[in-house]
């Protein structure tokens, strides 16, 4: 069966350029980047070259880049590394769980935490950030683009508010990286998280941008790696892959790739809206990253649609997976004011540059057919569901 992948916001495949860049570091070029000998020096050079590539993507200095194990670790260092009990932290209700649950943990440890609401389109209002400031506010953490809806947040405005109030600003840019331009100077953030595997680099790699002069307490101890900000032997091959992916992302933002992805996304979205009754776009009124569309289907259970489409060869996602793998309604859509049934009836399609027009055509056949089949069999507003 032909398999079509439209779940880029979950993870992306490695592209050949990244695999080629990594290959020598997995095989002949082994070495601990901290070692004094030539093996170590080669590995160190590779890590530092990757750091340059990443710094270029974010418009920052090399020394401001910390390599981590991924977005979750980066978010955790950011949330736990600057604040202490008694401080106040502002975040939003639509953050990734890596931020949300870290913030809940902070609250358990004696910090005050404000979870800001969002508009119907899933946007944090900068005025709400301003109003939430308290004398003891130390950190604001509001994401750059949302993983479920793709909605872009007003990070520049929030960055200004943070600077004026002399408060640290962290932004989780995991879903923005490689999709839109990221300029840490323009944003004015102190900390910014990126995950490798959302941009064709390997899983288990990530970045935390730490603005010069920001003295962050590490999560890990056991070595002076990453300028004492993240102990542990560097994942050299992964870091090299991430560096190569950053170069490719830099190019893709300038060579028309994003325009092509955006055109595919729009054709998919408009095509489904045209072919399927009682269907709407979540976050339609807000600016969105080019690759994501989140659609709600009335009278439908999204979980069944995800399974039915998967069995027909189309991989998409709905809600977030709980521990067992069952689907929970998305906290993002609930925060946008969707009732539970609507949140459950929502599906996310997220594209990469590897998707083709041909695949969009196939999805435009599969989705309407699956929706009408499901609606025929179990209208959710009838019978026992209520």
């Amino acid at each position, binding site marked *: 069966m032909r398999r079509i992948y439209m779940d880029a916001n979950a993870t992306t495949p490695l592209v050949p350029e990244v695999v080629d860049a990594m290959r020598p570091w997995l095989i002949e070029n082994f070495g601990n980047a901290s070692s004094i000998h030539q093996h170590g020096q080669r590995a160190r050079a590779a890590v530092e070259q990757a750091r340059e590539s990443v710094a270029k993507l974010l418009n920052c200095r090399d020394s401001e880049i910390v390599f981590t194990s991924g977005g979750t670790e980066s978010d955790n260092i950011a949330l736990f590394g600057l604040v202490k009990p008694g401080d106040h932290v502002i975040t939003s209700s639509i953050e990734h769980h890596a931020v949300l649950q870290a913030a809940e943990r902070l609250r358990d440890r004696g910090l005050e935490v404000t979870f800001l609401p969002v508009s119907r389109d899933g946007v944090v209002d900068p005025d709400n950030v301003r109003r939430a400031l308290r004398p003891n506010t130390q950190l604001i953490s509001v994401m750059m683009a949302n993983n479920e809806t793709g909605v872009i947040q007003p990070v520049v405005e929030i960055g200004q508010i943070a600077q004026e109030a002399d408060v640290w600003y962290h932004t989780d840019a995991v879903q923005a990286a490689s999709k839109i331009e990221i300029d840490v100077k323009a944003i004015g953030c102190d900390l910014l998280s990126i995950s490798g595997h959302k941009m064709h680099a390997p899983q288990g790699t990530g970045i935390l941008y730490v603005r010069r002069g920001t003295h962050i307490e590490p999560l890990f101890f056991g070595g002076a790696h990453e300028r004492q900000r993240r102990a542990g032997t560097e994942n050299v091959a992964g870091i090299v892959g991430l560096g190569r992916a950053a170069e490719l992302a830099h190019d893709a933002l300038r060579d028309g790739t994003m325009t092509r992805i955006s055109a595919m996304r729009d054709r998919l979205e408009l095509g489904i809206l045209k072919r399927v009754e009682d269907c709407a776009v979540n976050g339609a009124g807000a600016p969105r990253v080019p690759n994501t569309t989140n659609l709600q289907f009335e009278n439908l259970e999204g*979980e*069944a649609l995800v*399974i*039915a489409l*998967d*069995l027909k060869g189309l991989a998409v996602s709905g809600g977030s997976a*709980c*521990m*067992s*793998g*069952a*689907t*929970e309604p998305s906290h993002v859509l609930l925060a946008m004011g969707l009732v539970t049934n609507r949140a459950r009836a929502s599906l996310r399609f997220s594209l990469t540059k590897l998707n083709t027009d041909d695949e969009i055509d196939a999805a435009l056949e599969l989705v309407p057919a699956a929706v009408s*089949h*499901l609606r025929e*069999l*179990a209208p959710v507003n009838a019978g*026992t*569901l209520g």
Partner: protein
Amino acid sequence: MTYSYNNTIAIAMSGGVDSSTVAAMLKDEGYELVGLTLQLWNQRRLAGREGMPEHVQGRCCSIDDVYDARRVAEKLGIPYYVVNEEERFERDVVWPFVSEYLAGRTPIPCSLCNNHLKFDQLLVRARQIGADRIATGHYARNEYDPVRNRWILRRPADLTKDQTYFLFGLTQEQLSRTLFPLGGYRKPEVREIAAQHGLALAAKPDSQEICFIPGGDYKRFIDAYLDEQGENIPDTAGELVTSSGDVVGRHSGIHNFTIGQRKGLGVSSPNPLYVLQIDHASHRVTVGGGDEAVSKSVKARDLNWISIPQLEGEMRVRVKIRHRHEPAWATLRSSGPDEAEALFDESQRAVTPGQAAVFYDGDEVVGGGWIV
């Protein structure tokens, strides 16, 4: 009537040896399979509340079981999904279970689950994803009889594992779309087949208790659940009386009792005492000796007929009034709209409202209903 189906079967996989073996057997027969696990209850929800264990060791619905089911699906190379049915389970099984106890009855959550989730909802899910039929690891037999033009549910080869008592609510439509591949096997044979297929869980112990109540302490579960819901246990404390009306003690709530219960009555007596009756209105619990704890008949409501279209006149059957009950001979007749009465040849102990009465003709399930 002829039945035709597509080649796709959805398997209800619990992570146990039975449903895993079903998957392996049907895979060998060449069906297209889809494995589904119903996520019914979050065991961590009540952890630590009202004396519930902090760390959950529950067998069913547990993450370990989902891992086991997923590993089996991977090994067999079949697609596998976990389906979230927590809301339905709470509404259709947990809440009725709690309410029944509070009303002084003794419910069977497994039958409620079978009626509302395992078959009804699973069949909907199966058809949504392109499977005309489902298969489960229940020990029961299910065949179409062209003479009667009915689907017949029969007791399995392994009577020690017979689960037909919990399946009396299946409709003809549900039976026509359900396979019980283990009906002809004995449990040791099933474990053997699992081992032949290299399934690591071939020796996994059977689950016994109510899946969402690890340890089986349902009183503590009810306390914890009501506490979580912000509701108080209604005060149903009252008197313990004998059948002649003498007050012999007091009790702290009718939900602590089950008809036929002997332990924990809080009354000393030279002869063992049993709970004979629980009166919801007066909160009075009647106790008496073993000779009194028997009934000549049982009445059941909300009937479902399987081997017959409906009950006409009288019928000789054997009646099973709880899971571990040896079916007793009785004469069955209608006793009102959607109600039937079975007159036992020999009086039976502990006829308990809330349990099911299931009627058998030989090894066929005639039908059943809920004891009133």
